[in-house]
Structures are given as C-alpha cells and as structure tokens.
C-alpha cells in the first residue's frame, strides 16, 4: 500500500483542453484495420449484379455463363439464397397505418430503383467476381418510373408497389391547436387575412436530394465459425445491426457478433441494415465460408441511401411590424423506393424544428412521405433538422423582405429571450437553456455586420460586377437522441439510452467500453478527457473500446449528436460508480472511516490529514485481493446506463457574406462567421473541427451538391466527377466562436455539436445569394445555387423588370432589396395552396 504525501498535486483538468485527437495517427496513416482490410484465410468475394432500370419486371436471369468463369464459387439469384423473402427492417413506423412495402435483400420479381441488386456472384477474388457479374444475363421488362412526388400522389399514377395500393407511405400531422400547445393555424391564417395589420406569406422551397459521401465506402465481412457468425461492417450502428439481423433473419442473437472496426465516416449514411450486409451473411451461411463485400464509389453513390429531398410549402401569418402569428408547414418527403431503417421518421424530426427559436402562437405540420422509383432516403447529417431550419430561416428572410424589416431585427422580435428559459415551444419541446442575444451580438461584431451592409450599399450604388449579399441563420436543433419515453411516444422501435462500462486494470489504467460507435468524430479523445478528469487518472491511461458487440454488448450507437450528450453522461455515471465501489476499499486500506474520506484528483484522502490512496492503488489492491473488507466483492469495475430526460438544444448565429459575380453567376464565399452555443466544451479543437466539417457539408448543399435523376430514373451523379463535392480550395477560412449556456439536463452541461454546422449553414448561404441578387427582381433560386442557375435567375428577372416593381435598395430592409410593394394578402408565389 502506498500513501501519498501530496494529495493536492492534482493534474490540470482535461475537460476544456484542446487535446489533439489520439486516434488520428492511426486513422490518417492507415495503420489500422478497416473492414476491407480483414484478411481471413479462405475469404471469398462478392460482386452484386444491379439493375440498370428504375422500375422493371425481372423476367429471367441466366447465370450459366457467369458460373463457368474459373474461380467462381457460386452465382445466386434472390431465390437461391432466400434474399427475396427477407423483409429488411424499418424501425420507425411513424403512424399506425403506415404503408411499408416488403424490402428484400435482393429483388425477386421486380426492381424498384436503378441500382437495386438482383443477383450475387461469389468468387475467389474480387476481380473474378466482377468479371463474372458482367456475364449474368438479366431479362427485364421495363415499367414506368415514378419520379415526381406530386405526380406520384395523383389518381391513376403508376404505383411503385402496386401491392400497397398507393405511393403514399404515411401522413403525419402535428397541430398545436389539437395538441393544446398553441392555437389553431387555420384560425390564425384566416384572422390574418381579415386584418389590415397582418399579412400572409406563402413560399415553396425545394430540398434537393443529397448523397452522404463518406470517405470509406461500405464494406462487410461475414465469418461463420460453427454456429457463430461474426460480421465486420463499416457501420455506424453495430448494436442496432446485430439486434435487427437477429430479428429479421430469425438468427439467435447470442450466436451473432457484430464488429464495427475503425469506420471512415458515415454522416448518417451508415445507419442502416443494408441489403448487402444481409446478402453477405446469407451467402456466408450458405457456403459456411468467410465472405466479403466491398462497394465501389459508384455503387456507393447509386445505392447507399440518399438524404433530404423534400418539397416544402410554408405559410406564415405575421403582423406588419413583424410578429409571427402562425406557421403552417406542408411537406412532401421522398422516401425513394423503400423504407430505410429510420427513413420515414427523418422528416418527422423536422416537425419539432420548423418553429425553431421563435415564439409562434399557432403551428401546424403536415408531412406526406412518398414512394418513388429512386434510391431510398434516410438519415443524413442533421436528418430532418437541416430541412426544417432551411425552411424557417429562408422564410424569415422572405418575411423581412416583404415587410421591409431588417432581417436580424425581425428575428429578434420573435425569438425566445434569454430570461424566458426554460421555454416550452409550440411543438411541445422544452428548451432548457440558451441565449440567442449573446451568440448573435458576438457574431454581428465578429462579422462587422454594419460595415458589410455599408459595403453592400456602396457596391450597389457603383453597380459593381461583384455584388455583395448577406445571409443570416439563427438556428437551434434538438439533439442528443433521445429520451426513451419521447421515442416511445413517436412510435420509434427502440429507446434512446446509452451505456458505458469502466474496467479498472491492475496497473491503474482504465478501459472504458462504450455503446456509442465512433466513425471519425474523435470520441476516443474526448471520452478519455472526461474519464481522466472523473477518475483523476492520466489522459493517456484511458482506453476507449467501442464497436464490438462482444465487449460492448449494450449500446445504441452514434447518430443525432448523441455520443457525448448521452454516451458521455453514461461514462460520468460509470466513473461515479467506480469511485463509489472503491471507497470502502480505500477506507479499509487507510484504516479510516468511509465518512472521513474525500475523493479529489484521483485520490481518496482522509479529511484533514495528508493520508491518502490513489484509485490506481485501489485497483491493484482488488486485483491482488489479499486484504479487503468483509462483505464486498473485490472489484471496482462499473457499468452505467443513462437515459436522458430531455434532448439538448444547441443553437447559434451564422452569418454569411457572398460575392455574386453578376456577369457569370458564380458565387464566391466572402466571409463566414458562426457563434455556436454547444454548452460545455470538452475539447475546443474537436468542437471547431466538427463545426468546420459541418459547415462544409451545409454550404455544399447550398452551392454544390445534388443527386438528380433523368426522366428514365437514372441517377445522373453516379461518380464524383458529377457529384460535385467541394474541397478546401472551394471554401474559405471560417470564423468560429462559442458562447456557452450549459445544458441543465445533464451533469456535464454539454449539448451536441456534430450536426450544428450542417443544420445552420445552408440557409445562411442561400439567403446571402438571394440578398445579392434580389435587387434585380430575383425571388428564389433552387439549390444548389450553381452559376448557371444564378445567371439564369438574374437574366430572366432582368428581362421581366421595369413593371413598376423594381427593387427598392434603400429601404429599411437595410440592403435586403425590400420588395415591400409586393406585399399582398395571401400572396401565393409559387402556387400550391
């Protein structure tokens, strides 16, 4: 037993320290094992034969030529391995009467999107499998594709799945009048129509389809050893995958082990029970041999799920001095051909977020999910919340323009004031903390908002080729998914708790087994900081173990900015239990009463003395177990499960200035400032990294990315030449900062940060682009706002100018180019009401 002389010599706190990420060396140098690196003796390789057609009957498949290729072990159609009988799971039946078509692992008799698998080749090498796959002859009889959501809902429309009798998956409605959380929107709108002091404004916005382009393409290896099946997969959700595979395929859950080794990104795109994972498993089980499937980049773009894709109709009632009276939201959300794991619920997450940071007295949200013959959609960074934030923040700028009110002023008039927290919103969430004024004031100052507005005026007066536009997005989001009871009330198929176990090793090091599943976020670093602080041991002495259901048997994985706000708290609770368990043993070692002990800086000390033992000493003592108190077990390891009582609500103010080259339509980012309140910051470097990456993806939606289909249902962005991802060269240096109102619903005071940048940035950029060109009469530009679209918008608006509705560039809209003369009752620009 060691007694320590200097109990106050505690290490500097880890929380708040900008530690470099400990996992990066191996991730960046590749000195790790990704799924595709698994080398197992006798490993066989798969290649999946995919439909080139969006919608077709399969009339026959001839595998004979493929089977002749030397090195081919088998060529299977869906029926050969039972893949057509599988029903891939959808864990979120959003309504009782939701229509869920069967989603097979390989198509049996009909394909419903271009890229759907119809057969699989198994061979001794990936190259042989690919060669043979080209020899599989499939006889297709083409059917009409279903591409347009509105057409799909019309009577007599071609049905994607005739057996369910409709292309509508489900309709989900929230009405604050019915919920009792606010008034009736119908009443608010009709009152506004009759009131000379109010206006009703309608807008239609399009959320284009995006692809979550993770760096590491998906890959799965299944190794059947006796009755045991081990699956390695590049997944965000090893635990959910394991449970779902067991339920879906009727496998004994105890015979299945799922491992997510290091995973190279996901952005929601790897929250899935992918058909390819199931096919790999079915083939491995059939052959009794280890099998691997790894997708190509084009396969990934074509068949891994897509995100976004909504038509949004927003109608807002607002007084002429800018107070919102009611908000009506109608959505059409494209599910693609099938329902993904949480696909139908993604737009529903937006239901809670269209009201955003504003006090809206009456609110209605009505979403219809629609089937089309396209790749299915599911979670993509932000999942439902970027769509909602875009809708409301674009609308706020539209209102500002219509009313001639300075856009930030309009937001101030409507947002929840800092002294009003906690605040229960019209969509029934209770925001615990926040301070929109503080974040906004800091952002305005960093941005030099007034200076840029002046410059904008000057450029307009000079008629510069490059016009300045300024866009605002004051956002909040709900993250830290999620309180289990809330998920239950939304008919989600699981809870939202998270677990952590701490194993104290005899040498004083700690292994922390977590249920969340990192894929690039830097969890190992941030979690090590938390545990190091709580146990008072060195950062380097903490090892975070994750992603293997054999060691981490309970967990709900990583998405929805939950890993810190939920998983991190489980670690805190587990650490507290370790200390609790260590205390009687420490007391025994110090021959003192437990009541006289205090624990600080990793040491138990007897109050008022310099006698103490470290947690490491206790760990060694219980390992030796030579001498410990009667009646307790020689073990200080602990396990904890944390179920959050509430979501967390990060917020922030994002300001973007763009230069629009009015001769070419090119949009140059000029300045981007964001001040985010993510609560307590564990590691500022990681927070900044998450914000930067998030901004890149959100800005990309505004300016660069789109996954369009042609009229036959073929994806036009099937390679990264066509799916224009931005690189660092296309972005600017972002100015980021944080304010902090710690969350009061968890002991660390943390919120989430993983999705914030993506959620907030898109409308800031689009608002800025429009702000630059509204002066020419442009009213809207679809995303991405490509040079061609911007130029076309300027050109066609200029062509229709001169009808007396010229932009007033000197109005109180402070450079917004207020088109106040356009204000009209029930303005239905864009139609559709």
């Amino acid at each position, binding site marked *: 037993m060691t007694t320590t002389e200097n109990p106050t010599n505690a290490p500097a706190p880890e929380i708040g320290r900008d530690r470099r990420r400990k996992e990066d060396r191996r991730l960046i140098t590749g000195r790790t094992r990704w799924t595709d690196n698994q080398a197992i003796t006798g490993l066989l390789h798969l290649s999946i034969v995919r439909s080139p057609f969006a919608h077709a009957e399969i009339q026959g498949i001839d595998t004979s030529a493929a089977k002749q290729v030397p090195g081919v072990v088998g060529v299977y159609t869906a029926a050969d391995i039972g893949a057509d009988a599988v029903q891939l799971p959808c864990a979120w039946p959003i309504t009782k009467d939701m229509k869920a078509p069967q989603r097979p692992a390989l198509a049996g008799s009909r394909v419903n999107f271009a890229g759907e698998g119809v057969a699989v080749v198994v061979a001794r090498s990936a190259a042989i499998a690919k060669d043979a796959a080209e020899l599989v002859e499939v006889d297709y009889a083409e059917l009409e594709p279903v591409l347009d959501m509105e057409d799909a809902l019309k009577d007599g429309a071609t049905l994607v799945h005739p057996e369910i009798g409709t292309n509508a998956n489900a309709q989900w409605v929230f009405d604050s009048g019915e919920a009792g959380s606010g008034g009736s929107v119908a009443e608010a709108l009709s009152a506004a129509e009759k009131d000379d002091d109010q206006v009703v404004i309608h807008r239609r916005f399009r959320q284009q389809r995006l692809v979550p382009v993770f760096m590491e393409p998906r890959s799965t290896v299944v190794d059947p050893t006796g009755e045991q099946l081990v699956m390695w997969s590049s997944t965000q959700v090893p635990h959910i995958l394991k449970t779902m595979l067991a339920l879906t395929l009727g496998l004994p859950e105890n015979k299945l082990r799922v491992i997510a080794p290091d995973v190279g990104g996901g952005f929601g795109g790897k929250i899935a029970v992918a058909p390819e994972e199931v096919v790999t498993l079915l083939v491995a089980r059939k052959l009794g041999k280890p099998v691997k499937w790894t997708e*190509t980049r084009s396969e990934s773009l074509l068949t891994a799920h897509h995100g976004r894709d909504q038509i949004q109709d927003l109608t807002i009632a607002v007084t002429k001095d800018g107070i919102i009276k009611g908000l009506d939201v109608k959505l059409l959300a494209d599910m693609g051909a099938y329902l993904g794991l949480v696909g139908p619920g993604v737009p529903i997450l937006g239901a809670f977020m269209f009201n955003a940071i504003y006090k809206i007295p009456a609110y209605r949200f009505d979403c219809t999910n629609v089937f089309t013959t396209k790749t299915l959609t599911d979670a993509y960074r932000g999942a439902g919340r970027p769509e909602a934030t875009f809708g409301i923040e674009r609308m706020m700028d539209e209102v500002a323009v219509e009313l001639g009110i300075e856009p930030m002023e309009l937001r101030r008039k409507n947002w929840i004031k800092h002294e009003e927290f906690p605040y229960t919103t019209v969509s029934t969430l209770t925001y615990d903390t926040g301070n929109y004024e503080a974040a906004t004031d800091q952002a305005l100052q960093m941005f030099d908002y007034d200076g840029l507005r002046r410059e904008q005026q000057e450029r307009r007066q000079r008629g510069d080729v490059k016009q300045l536009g300024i866009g605002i997005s004051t956002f909040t989001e709900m993250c830290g998914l999620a309180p289990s009871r809330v998920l239950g009330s939304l008919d989600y198929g699981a809870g939202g708790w998270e677990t952590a176990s701490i194993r104290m090793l005899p040498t004083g090091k700690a292994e922390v087994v977590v249920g969340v599943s990192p894929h690039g976020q830097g969890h190992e670093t941030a979690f090590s900081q938390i545990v190091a602080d709580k146990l008072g041991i060195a950062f380097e002495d903490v090892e975070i173990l994750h992603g293997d259901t054999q060691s981490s048997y309970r967990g709900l994985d990583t998405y929805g900015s939950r890993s810190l706000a939920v998983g991190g708290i489980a670690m805190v609770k587990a650490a507290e239990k370790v200390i609790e368990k260590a205390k009687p043993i420490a007391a025994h070692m110090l021959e003192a009463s437990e009541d006289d002990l205090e624990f600080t800086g990793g040491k138990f000390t007897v109050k008022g003395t310099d006698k103490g033992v470290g947690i490491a000493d206790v760990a060694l003592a219980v390992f030796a177990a030579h001498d410990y108190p009667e009646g307790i077990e020689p073990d200080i390891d602990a396990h904890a499960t944390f179920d959050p009582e509430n979501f967390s609500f990060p917020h922030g103010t994002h300001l973007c200035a763009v230069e629009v080259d009015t001769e*070419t339509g090119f949009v140059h980012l000029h300045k981007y400032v964001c001040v985010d309140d993510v609560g307590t910051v564990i590691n500022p470097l990681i927070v900044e990294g998450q914000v930067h990456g998030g901004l890149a993806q959100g800005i990309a939606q505004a300016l660069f990315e789109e996954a369009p289909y042609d009229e036959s249902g073929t994806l036009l962005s099937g390679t990264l030449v066509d799916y224009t991802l931005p*690189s660092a060269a*296309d972005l600017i240096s972002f100015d980021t900062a944080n304010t902090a109102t710690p969350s009061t619903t968890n002991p660390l005071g943390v919120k989430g940060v993983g999705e914030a940048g993506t959620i907030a940035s898109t409308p800031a950029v689009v608002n800025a682009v429009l702000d630059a060109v509204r002066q020419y009469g442009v009213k809207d530009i679809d995303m991405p706002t490509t040079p061609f679209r911007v*130029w076309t918008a300027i050109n066609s608006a200029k062509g229709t100018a001169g009808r007396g509705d010229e932009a007033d560039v000197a109005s109180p809209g402070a450079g917004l180019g207020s088109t106040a003369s356009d204000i009209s009752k029930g303005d239905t620009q864009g139609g559709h009401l």
Partner: protein
Amino acid sequence: MIPASFDYVRPTSVDEAVQALVEGGDDAKLLAGGQSFIPVLRLRMGDPSLVVDLGGIPELRGVREEGDQIVVGAMTTHHEVTRDDLLAQHVALIQEATKTVADPQVRHRGTLGGALAHADPAGDLAAPTLALDAELVVVGQNGERRVPAAEFFEDYFTTAIGPGEILTAIRFPKYTGWGARYEKFNRVAQAWSIVAVAATVKVEGGSITDARIGLTNMAGTPVRARGVETALVGQTMSEETVRAAAQAAAEGTSPTSDADAGSDYREHLARVLTGRAVLAAAG
C-alpha cells in the same frame, strides 16, 4: 472498381513502344499518367487486351529548347510543366493553363501528351496548344510526322494520332515577353472547365500588337477565337476596347448544353471570360 484483365508491357524506347502497339493491334492501348485512362478501365468503359505503359521511356520526358521552339516531351507531367523555367519564360500560357488542371495529386501523374491525346473537349490543355500554334510530333512505324495543332484535334476524344502511332512531343513556338492568362470557369476547384479561355497577347507601347486566343469546351474540339484576335490587334489597350473585341468570342462555336450550362450561357461565358482573360494577360 476493378478493371478487366489485360496484358501489360513497359518498353524503354519509343521504337519498342511502337512495335508493341502495332503487334497488339486494335485492342492495344497506351498508358501515360493514367489519370483519364485508368478511370476508363475501372469503370469498364474500355477493356484493352494489351496496355503499353509509356512510363519507362526517358526520352519522352522533359522540356528543352530547340532553336526558336520549346519542345515538351509527351510524358512530361503537369506538375513538371508548371515548374519549368523555359516554359515560364517562353510559353507562359501552357503553364497558366496547366496550373488549373485538377489537383496536385492528378498533376503529379497526368501528362501533357496524355491530356492532348485524350482530347476531352472540357480538358484544359488543348485550347492553349491550339492558340499557341504548337506542332505535335507523332511517331509510328514509318517514322515521325509533325501535325499542326489546328489539324490535330478532330472531334470529341479524337485526334490525328493514327493506329500504331505515339505522340512523342509538343513543339511550341516562343512567345517570349507575351502576357498570358488562362481564365477557367468551373464549379469546384478540381473539376474540368465549363468554359475556359486561353489568351496570350503582346502589348507594345500601350497597344496590342498580337493576340492568340483559344476556347475550351465551346465545341467538340478547341476553338480559335480568330474574330477576337483580329479585333484586338492594333487597338490601344483599354478595358473598353478589349470588351468590345471579346463580343466576337462565341462566333463559330457550337457549345453543348448540359446540367452545368446551356449553350447560350456557354456563349455568354465565352465573351465575358475572353474579356477578362485578355485584360489579365495584358495586365
């Protein structure tokens, strides 16, 4: 993605390479930097039976001065072109254009000869080569021939290089003292041009005394903007004269329409970018 299988040879001289190519017949293909060819193989848009790798032939690489010409070996990489002093001094335009190609990784592998032989209408190096009146040296079984750039680019992805022939070098006349600018318009940094303008001009005593202008992606082949060249020569340098001359930029072009640009937009861009390119070149 995995290419179909093929035979592979890596000759060490041009003669050996020609021999291999001829023996390989129709299904033999040359590999230079592989930045266009390997994606074609990987996407299985082509499946040659024999690949002849030009990477082991030292005589194809490097930049040298020969009298009043600068000669660039076909296998000189984009990166080497951007760093070469002779080119900086005498053929700045090709260097300016090469700097805009893709990203550093691609520029370290891709070659000038490969890019010109590939003849992608959206590729950035054909228009400057045309504008500069370069000669392309092509070697086959019957020896060497020199093809003027104006005759080299025949159509989309089609050049005057015949079966069994190899492009060995590009011979540029010297444009010592000329200003140069490659004005590239694309959506993201590593992408091909939607439209681009290669301009090099000689300015003496405030007047434009000579001008060469080539357009990228305004037709299936690069296009020479002769109307603009004529309109510029003899003019006093001013923004006004340049912009007026640039109005002729789209004459004789036949641009395509795609998701990135309609043909009228491409024509408009050609005019705007020509004005900008000439102004910057005259700088």
